[in-house]
Structure formats: C-alpha cells, structure tokens
C-alpha cells in the first residue's frame, strides 16, 4: 500500500503532448480511476507510473520516493493490461507464479501465494490449463491474480474489463470492487467507460487532451461537473445542453445550460418557464424509460416517471427546477458557481 503523487507530469511523443502537465495525488488504499475518451492520455499516464514510458518532464512519487529513474522492476507496482498479456506458453499456475519466481521466492511461499490467488479468484481446477484453454473472464482473472500475488504497493489496471462481453463485464466490475475492499491496495484504474468509473472509484479524474479536467468522487463530479466536457461525459444518457437564451429561467446568451435527463419534468399544458418541444421516441431500459423530445435546439432526453404513459408525437413543455440547472460559461466552458 502506498500513495502515488504525480507532479507536473508531461509526456510528449515528438511534438504532441499525450500527457500535459498532470498533477494528481492518489491516496493510500484508494481506488482512483482515470477516465476519458480514447487518446486523452490516461493510458500514457498509467504507463508512466508503471515505468513503461519515460516522462518528458515532471516527477512521479510512489510512497514519497521519486521513481522517475527507477525501471518498472524496482517500482513495486503490478499492472494488468487490456490484452491481459498472459504468457501463452505457461499454464495458469506458471503464469501466477512467474513474478514470484523472478523475485526468488521459495517453493513453499510460491505455492502458498498461488493457492491464495487461485482461491481468491475462483480459478480452482484450472491450474494446469493454458491461457488459450480459458474463457475471457478466466483469463482476466489470471491476469489480475498474477499482479496480486506480488503484493504490489500500487496496482495499475489498464482497461482490464473492456475485452469482456457486457454481462461478464458487470460481474467482474462487482468482483473488482469487492476485491479492493478485501485487499485495500492502492489502485489506479484506467477506463473510457464512465459507468465503470462511476461504480468502481473512490475518486475519479476526468481527462481530456492530456489534461485532468476534474478530480473528485463520482458523486461530486456528477453533481457539480467542473465544465461542459465533464458534464457531458459523465452520466448516461448524457446531460442535455441548451443555449442560455432559450431557457426562460436563465435568459443569458453568454451561458450554456446543462440539464440532466432526470431533472426535467414534462407538462402537456403550457408552462411559461418551460421549453416547448414535440415528443419523438421513447427508449425503455427496463427500470427506466427515456423520452427524446424534439426542440428548436435539437433532441433533449428526459427520464420518464413510472406513471407516465406513452407520450410519442405530442406537443409538450419541459421544465426543471432552477437549482437543478448547471450553468457554464459559453466561451470557456467552465462551471459558473
């Protein structure tokens, strides 16, 4: 267990800054997620912590020690890769024991720790199999186990769930969270999936174009997104954005108004503070339904209350409480408090 501190970290490939002046504190035992669209620099940041990329400038501290010049072997980290990177010629057991062998652990300790990982991750009976004889979920668990048996100070996870099918991904998500509760290792987790970030993280850092836009708990970022990008990236379906002058409660053309689908309500009779539109299609997700409303500013999605019937192709007014509106500066995109 350890804390990780990034100070003004920059990584350039040729002239392009993949990571641009990133500073971040990851607390001891924390599950921190770097989330952002592909190409935002989250994986590069993670690889820099692992020692697989040399930062162009800035410092990385693990447990207070500056590790910039340490090779990955000496950083006491473990990493799980998106492709799992299991050794195809080794059995599950050998894959799990590989790091222990490298670290010259005795046969007894090796066997003990491998057994621990096998039991923890439900891999009993698969010890002698080769990676190609395992399912995607099992491979993923071997990759995780291989990292965990080394008892790293920091566990780095690079999109570990994105190669799994949707159902398995949900299950592994829960298992990861339970695992973290149990082992309490500091985890830095990279994903492009905001739902994954929201459900797993203690705190998350939203990244775009190599910069961190906002760091906070999932709740904080959802409730008070720092700018238009964070507001739009976190939450599904995403927040609706309307120009300020079109929202009667705001009437300010220098402002972009963001409204979450669940903060809008529908009225079939005219409301002065409402926005007029015509209902178009309904999406039902089972427990929730979303109605897409055609307004003069494009489609706006609204979460339907359970008692509202089918509302397709009807004129209606959309309204929200004023305190539920998120106001952003139109020129900078930053939140106006």
């Amino acid at each position, binding site marked *: 267990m350890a804390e990780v501190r990034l100070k003004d970290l920059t990584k350039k490939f040729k002239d392009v800054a993949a990571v641009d002046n990133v500073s971040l504190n990851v607390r001891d035992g924390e599950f921190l997620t770097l989330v952002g669209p592909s190409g935002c620099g989250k994986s590069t940041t993670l690889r820099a912590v692992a020692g697989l990329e040399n930062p162009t400038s800035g410092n990385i501290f693990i447990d207070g020690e500056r590790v910039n010049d340490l090779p*990955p072997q000496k950083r006491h980290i473990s990493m799980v890769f998106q*492709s799992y990177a299991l050794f195809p010629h080794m059995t599950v057991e050998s894959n799990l024991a590989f790091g222990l062998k490298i670290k010259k652990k005795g046969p007894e300790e090796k066997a003990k720790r491998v057994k621990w990982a096998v039991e923890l991750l439900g891999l009993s009976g698969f010890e002698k199999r080769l990676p190609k004889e395992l399912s995607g979920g099992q491979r993923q668990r071997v990759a995780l186990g291989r990292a965990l048996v080394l008892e790293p100070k920091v566990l780095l996870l690079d999109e570990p769930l994105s190669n799994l099918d949707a159902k398995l991904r949900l299950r592994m998500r829960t298992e990861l969270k339970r695992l973290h509760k149990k082992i309490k290792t500091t985890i830095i987790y990279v994903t492009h999936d905001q739902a994954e970030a929201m459900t797993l993280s203690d705190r998350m850092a939203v990244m775009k174009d190599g910069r961190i836009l906002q760091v906070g708990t999932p709740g904080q970022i959802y409730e008070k997104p720092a700018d238009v990008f964070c507001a739009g990236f976190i939450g599904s379906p995403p927040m609706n954005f309307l120009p300020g002058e079109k929202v009667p409660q705001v009437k300010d053309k220098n402002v972009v108004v963001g409204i979450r689908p669940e903060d809008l309500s529908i009225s079939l009779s005219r409301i002065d503070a409402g926005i007029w539109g015509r209902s178009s299609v309904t999406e039902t997700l089972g427990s929730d339904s979303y109605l897409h409303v055609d307004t003069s500013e494009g489609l706006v999605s609204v979460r339907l209350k359970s008692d509202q019937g089918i509302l397709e192709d009807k004129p209606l007014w959309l309204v929200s409480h004023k305190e539920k509106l998120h106001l952003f500066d139109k020129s900078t995109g930053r939140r106006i408090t």
Partner: protein
Amino acid sequence: MPGSIRISSLLLRLKSNLFTIGFFIPAFLYLFSFFVIILIFLLKFSFSGNLPLLSLFSSAEFKQALWRSLCFMGVGTPLQLVVGLLLALLIQRSFRGVGAVRSLFMIPIAIPALVTAIIIDLLFSYPFGPVNDLLLGRHGFFPQLVSVPVNWSGSEFLSLGLAILGKTWRDMPISMLILLAGLHSIEREQYEAAKTMGAGAWQEFKYLTLPLLTPAILTILILRSIENWKEFVFPFVLAPSYPLLGVLIERLYHVEQNPALAASVALGLVILIALTTLLFTAITKVVRRYLVRV
C-alpha cells in the same frame, strides 16, 4: 435405385469439392514425380548388382565421410541458429536506418554459393593468400601471429572449419528471417508485463523469447540440418581432400562411375536426415518443457 443414388451422390461430392481437388492434383503430381519416383529409382539403384550397399557402409572412405558430415551438421546447424538469433535480436529493434541494415544482412544469400566458396578459397590460399599475408604480419596494422604460412586446405580441421564458416555466412539470412518473424509475433505487452513483474533482460529472454521462439527454432534446426547433411558446394571447393557424404556422392558418380554406390550413399543421407529431424524435434520439446516450467 440405390446404385444410381450412390453414384449421383458421389458425383455431387466430387462437384462440390472440385476446387479442392483442382488444387490437390498439381501438388500430388509434384510430390509423386519428384519424390516417389526419385525414391524408387534410388532404392532400385542401391539394391542393384551384388549389394554394393554393405561393402560400401563398411568401407573406411564412407565411414570417414559420414564422420565429417556429422561434424559439419553438428557444428554448422547450432552455429547457424546462434548467429541467426543474434542478428535477429540485433535488427528487431527499430532504429534509424534499420531497413538498410536488414537489406545489408540479406546480401550473402544473393551471392551464388559457388562464388562465395571460391572467394573464400582465394582469400585463404596457400602460401600467398591475403589472410596468410595478414597473419604473417605483412601489413603494419595487424600483429604477426604465425611464422610460416598456414596451409588451410591441407588440414582437415581448418579446411572443414572454413567450409562451415562459409556455409554459415551464406545461409545466415534464412535463419535470421525466420527468427525475426518469430520475434515479431511475440506481443510487446508480454515483455512489459514481465518487466512490471520484476523480470530483467536475461529473464525475459529465458522465460519469454526463447520458449516462444521454439517453433521457429525447430524449423531452423530441421531445415538447416537437412541442408548441412546434404552440403556439397563449400566442402567441395574448400576441402576437396576431405570429402563429406555430399561430395562422396559426386565422386562415386562422376569419378568412379558407380551410380549404384552413389545412390546408396544418397539413401543413407535420406535416412540420416529423417533421424536427425526426429532427434531435433524431441530435443526441442524437452528444452521447451524445461524453460516453461516456473
């Protein structure tokens, strides 16, 4: 009628597999004409007359040639593997001008083996070859290493050694390319994973590169050992006084005008090649199992 049904279903199967059959026929003809027919003639020749096979296999000439061929194969094959591996490891990284370097390493195979062999023969000629000049200290930049010129082709050890080196030099691009392809098929992330688990360069090589290269290594061992068993050009030019099996075949056929004996030696070579292939396959399997065990 069941008979006509059977025939029509057979025709149908023929028709639906026409494409496959079309591809199969040339391959079959090729194999048959170049392999089966040659083997039949070889067997026929070998066992013609009053069984020259037995007398030949007990002759000193044959035993010596067999021993030399064994040495040639036993030294040359691993040497070609090691040299190929070193070069492949050297040029697998991408650096400025890697394309040019790769092309440079391809040159030996573009030169006819006979030309290479003759150039080596000229370089190492006795007593006034450039190499002898060098060793005698006739050039200022090189220290004198011998006091009398070395008779390369007069020594069994030296002449066969030169033949092995010449063969290795010429054929190194083949091993190198096969191994390079093998190296490129290993995912970079596997090395990165090994690094994060604490592995150094040597451990990466031992636990990842080597075992993952075993298919390529086995291919090289088999291909190269076959080539080395059969080798003719280099020993023929560089070590004419010390014939290998390949050279012996030529001598028996051309000089001694005894095709039956030549065919017998060739048959022996085929058997040796088959045995060597089995041996290398077994060895590679054992080595791989040892390397994979963690």
